[in-house]
């Protein structure tokens, strides 16, 4: 949709004087203006983006040095703080809240001279798989407006899908970057837990959350990751593991495994199953080995995920009490407990309350061991089994989602059906390993679907290489 196929093609034109930042930003602003019905943006930083673009243009003209991401037009999910700008996690409870500092990821992007064009709609507190849980209304899939874009980073996915920015940031706690990337026909990366600092990311489930990147190709995603990955004094869980070169592609053949339990799962769309089987053969033809392996825990990953994430969420979201920031009830003369209850109940949406209650349950006296500890033990089993597979193979390939994008409203009355759609994505978050979804094919219903690649912790370089290889073989182009 953009006239440039990649960031490097854009920058080449920029430095050769064939385009300017101002012209490019204006083009994106125009498109944003024409696609308001998609509801992808919660706020567009129009004046500010243009001002930044003009400043960059004059620096380039004067031959001054600029950052690695100079002129890159980027959108950020409404759970990532940007100093002086509103951030609400798409919740009424944070309506009107202004960030006092920028997330480390945002600081690093700004240091490389990106242009942040706006903040992007999502499910409230990143809880959801359809972007229907936003206090500011649903986001529509640009390819078919009767379908959801996926969630929770729906706005971030659609912004890239519809050409409203070059790349975007999302967050992925159980698939919130990969699933919408799959539904929208683009690339979505969730790095290793701890690869990107979570400082300035509004917390949902702290042992799962990770900032992720949306793009139209692997090179763009690698470029963004290169800038934002690495240790951070403000987040002790951000790893000190060296940040290698993510941007060089090494052509080699790979040892790939696929999980039988995932490919033959009863929930997987039959046409997609066929598509994956054919693709695995194509991968072999291209010189890779593709081996079927067993993974008996697949049906347990979603239950374990919901116990652990709701527990962490109930704790993380206890900070919203209507005292120092956030929504406060306008009712007067309340007892203290009722003051908290009113403020929180007026501010949080339905799905958030559901998850807080489940989390409170699994952490409460008498149930803690049977539910919470049990899920932590299952997490251990899952991590060990996955490590075992990844010590023998370079990567695991499997579907990203069992179906193509749902119709709007299709699953909203059945939380369990909605949760089960996360079956292939939560695995990487449970184990803290990196995973990416890349577009694979079009379904006969017209919608795209992708394939997910998982590698071992801190092996994003191989992950991106394999993803590039996969895209070359499938010849899939982003929507």
């Amino acid at each position: 949709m953009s006239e440039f196929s990649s960031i490097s093609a854009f920058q080449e034109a920029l430095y050769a004087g064939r385009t300017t930042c101002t012209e490019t930003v204006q083009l994106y602003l125009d498109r944003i203006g024409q696609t308001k019905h998609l509801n992808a943006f919660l706020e567009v930083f129009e004046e500010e983006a243009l001002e930044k673009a003009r400043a960059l243009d004059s620096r380039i003209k004067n031959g001054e040095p600029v950052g690695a991401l100079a002129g890159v037009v980027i959108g950020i999910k409404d759970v990532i703080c940007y100093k002086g700008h509103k951030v609400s996690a798409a919740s009424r409870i944070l309506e009107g809240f202004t960030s006092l500092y920028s997330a480390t990821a945002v600081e690093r992007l700004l240091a490389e001279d990106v242009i942040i064009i706006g903040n992007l709609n999502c499910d409230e507190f990143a809880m959801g798989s359809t972007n229907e849980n936003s206090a500011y209304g649903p986001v529509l899939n640009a390819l078919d407006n009767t379908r959801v874009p996926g969630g929770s980073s729906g706005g971030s996915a659609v912004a890239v899908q519809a050409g409203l920015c070059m790349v975007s940031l999302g967050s992925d706690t159980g698939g919130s970057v990969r699933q919408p990337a799959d539904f929208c026909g683009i690339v979505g990366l969730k790095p290793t837990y701890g690869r990107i600092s979570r400082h300035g990311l509004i917390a949902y489930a702290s042992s799962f959350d990770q900032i992720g990147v949306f793009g139209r190709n692997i090179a763009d995603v690698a470029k963004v990751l290169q800038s934002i990955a690495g240790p951070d004094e403000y987040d002790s869980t951000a790893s000190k593991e060296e940040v290698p070169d993510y941007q060089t592609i090494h052509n080699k053949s790979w040892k790939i495994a696929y999980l039988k339990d995932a490919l033959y799962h009863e929930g997987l769309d039959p046409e997609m199953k066929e598509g994956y089987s054919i693709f695995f053969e194509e991968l072999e033809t291209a010189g890779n080995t593709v081996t079927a392996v067993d993974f008996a825990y697949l049906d347990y990953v979603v239950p374990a995920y919901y116990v652990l994430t709701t527990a962490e969420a109930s704790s993380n979201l206890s900070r919203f009490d209507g005292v120092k920031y956030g929504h406060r009830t306008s009712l007067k003369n309340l007892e203290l407990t009722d003051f908290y209850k009113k403020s929180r109940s007026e501010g949080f949406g339905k799905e958030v309350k559901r998850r807080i209650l489940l989390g409170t349950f699994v952490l409460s006296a008498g149930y803690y061991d049977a539910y919470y500890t049990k899920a932590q033990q299952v997490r251990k089993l899952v991590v060990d089994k996955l490590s075992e597979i990844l010590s023998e193979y370079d990567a695991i390939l499997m579907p990203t989602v069992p179906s193509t994008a749902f119709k709007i409203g299709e699953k909203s009355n059945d939380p369990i059906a909605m949760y089960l759609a996360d079956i292939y994505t939560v695995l990487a978050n449970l184990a803290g390993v990196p995973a990416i979804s890349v577009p694979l094919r079009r379904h006969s219903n017209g919608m795209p679907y992708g394939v997910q690649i998982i590698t071992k912790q801190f092996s994003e370089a191989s992950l991106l290489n394999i993803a590039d290889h996969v895209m070359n073989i499938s010849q899939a182009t982003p929507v």
Partner: protein
Amino acid sequence: MEVNETLVQQLADLARLEFSEQEKTEIKGDLQKMITFVEKLNELDTTNVKPLLHMTADSNVLREDRVIPSISREEGLLNAPDANEQYFKVPKVIRK
């Protein structure tokens, strides 16, 4: 595990949330479904499996304790639902 109204009320109290009678019926049904769903974990034998508590291999991540500027009072009060120039204002909670 059966979810009844007493449990829903107890959890709502702990979580500082409240629900109308109609919402309570719905929440009770949802919670029942969710709890039954996660009880699937009981099918797995986890005897002697150590629960996984930390996602990173790092432990005791330490750094020098330096005093560095943080936010100003004005900034700190910026997002307050109610404040004067110096303090957050809260409703009176101590009664005679």
